[in-house]
């Protein structure tokens, strides 16, 4: 039984990471009806930015929470800038084009980030410095949790609460919600749709960057293609929860994380990647709106 709870702890931890990434997918889809294929690669960049900043700060010599915080913030800032650039230069010009054109642009950006990463960083994996050395705490009943997992959970929680606050209790958040309903109406209300779209992208990228650093703390091996699978899984998580729906992304992320850990733990590790696809197909065929979403039919 304690194994089950251990898996649950691990699952929730991974689920929080997926949730952070899924939030970016869901917010962008809600606002632009665009599947941002490149989002998983922003997560990868977050890990890499964190890596370089950590090395620059010599954080391995002075490990500690302050160093980790700096690394986190720097990575978030860096990826926020990347999100800004991607939106401005690649997605904005195709906003008026067909959905397929936007989809292909997104794929192009994703490939660009991945292969650009290989070109600039080199294809060989790098190792994230151990800023926070690993220590295990016992939760009782044979279940342990590492301090890294605690950090992942708490940072994720803080970020998600922060996001909720922004979306529900600030003017920007209200504007985001308005734009996600109807661009034209929002514009007529005096909202600068462009600025809100950019803000949403930056916000999503910041969260993905955080996820990248958090994962780097726990699983130090990073390489330019590391964003593909987590990006895909986070996307499935977003769809699972109802794409466009923010609490849905969190729920989907947790379900995804827990399911994956359970299947790997109780069935077989070789099915780890396939689960995401199977879940995706099931949800799209059974309930395309997702757990918390609403499938809006076309008005005839």
């Amino acid at each position: 039984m304690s194994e089950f709870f251990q898996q649950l702890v691990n699952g929730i931890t991974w689920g929080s990471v997926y949730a952070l990434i899924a939030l970016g997918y869901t917010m962008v889809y809600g606002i632009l009806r665009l599947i941002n294929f490149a989002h998983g690669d922003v997560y990868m960049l977050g890990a890499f930015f964190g890596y370089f900043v950590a090395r620059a700060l010599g954080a391995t010599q002075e490990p500690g929470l302050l160093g980790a915080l700096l690394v986190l913030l720097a990575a978030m800032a860096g990826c926020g800038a990347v999100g800004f650039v991607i939106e401005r230069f690649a997605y904005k010009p195709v906003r008026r084009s067909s959905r397929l054109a936007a989809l292909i642009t997104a794929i192009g950006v994703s490939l660009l980030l991945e292969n650009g990463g290989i070109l600039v960083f080199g294809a060989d994996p790098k190792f994230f410095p151990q800023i926070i050395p690993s220590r295990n705490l016992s939760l009782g009943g044979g279940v342990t949790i590492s301090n890294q997992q605690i950090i992942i959970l708490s940072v994720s929680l803080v970020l998600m609460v922060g996001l909720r606050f922004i979306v529900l209790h600030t003017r920007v958040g209200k504007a985001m919600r308005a734009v996600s309903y109807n661009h034209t109406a929002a514009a007529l209300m005096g909202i600068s749709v462009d600025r809100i779209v950019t803000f949403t992208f930056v916000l999503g990228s910041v969260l993905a960057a955080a996820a990248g650093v958090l994962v780097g703390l726990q699983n130090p091996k990073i390489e330019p293609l590391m964003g593909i699978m987590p990006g895909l899984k986070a996307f499935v998580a977003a769809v699972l929860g109802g794409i466009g729906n923010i609490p849905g992304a969190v729920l989907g992320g947790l379900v995804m994380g827990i399911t994956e850990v359970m299947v790997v733990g109780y069935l077989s590790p070789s099915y780890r990647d396939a689960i995401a696809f199977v879940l995706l197909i099931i949800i799209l065929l059974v309930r395309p709106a997702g757990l918390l979403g609403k499938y809006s039919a076309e008005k005839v």
Partner: protein
Amino acid sequence: MKRIAWGPVAKLVAVVAVLYALNALLPRLLNPYILRVVMLCGISVILAVSLNLINGFTGQFSIGHAGFMAIGAYSSATFSLQAGANWVRALEAAGTPTGIAQGAVLLAGLLLGGTVAAIAGYLVGLPSLRLRGDYLAIVTLGFGEIIRVLITNIDAVGAARGLPGIPAWTNVFWVGLVVVGVTVFSFHLARSTHGRALFAIRDDEVAAEALGVPTTSYKVLAFIIGSFFAGVAGALFAHYNAYLHPNSFTFLKSIEIIAMVVLGGMGSISGAILAAVILTLLPEVLRFAQELRMVLYSLMLIVLMITRPQGLLGAKEISLRWFTRTRPARAAR
């Protein structure tokens, strides 16, 4: 001057004769590297034109086409390895010349690969086609990946080690024949009531259905035909490369095929052909800049979508008189 009335049978004989001649000449005239590029161009053309039926004609976002290619490749390869080679030997023993024996068995393999892929297309298409645009794209992506993962886990076809030793029966004749076949098929389909039904579905599915077009049936049909030809392309590839590995059929391969259809112009058959050739030659031309290749490729996709999303030819075709003639010329008075 009397115009020769080219009946359809005469056209077929002419095509076969030309291909036969090319098949004999090209391996002599071209060095093996260039010949390989030509063959790969041909296979890419088949893939692009077949995807054009689904994406371009019918407007269904299918981004898992490599999966159908893989099914065709692996099923035909398995057939050849298990039974095909024996059939060839049997035919040769009965006195059939080698080339014809191999060709006949290859044809059987192509049809098998195409059919299995078509069945897969039906199974994928039927439940998915209720979904709209983006959702359909994601489901087809998912299916493409599931197919690849499944193949990687089936030991009997080599799994992650790959499948070697496939008889290399593909030649210029067969690739050329399928290229001509799928192209003529597409043109004839486009200029018929069934083609119009597909375009109508692409333009406005609700209106099409309100006018009596059975939209679901047509969408599934497009999927079945598109995946059939993808399967045939896969079978041709398997019997050319003589070796198969699941990594040849990843999402990236599906993207490459989509890029061809989009670059050529969605719905344009000649555009798809042109783009397939360009995008197959490009990596060869850029061989010197190997690391930059993928970066340039991705930049090309982005720039193309920003500057000219309708592709090279938009929805138009390269108009050459004898492609557009739909009925045999009446005898001159």
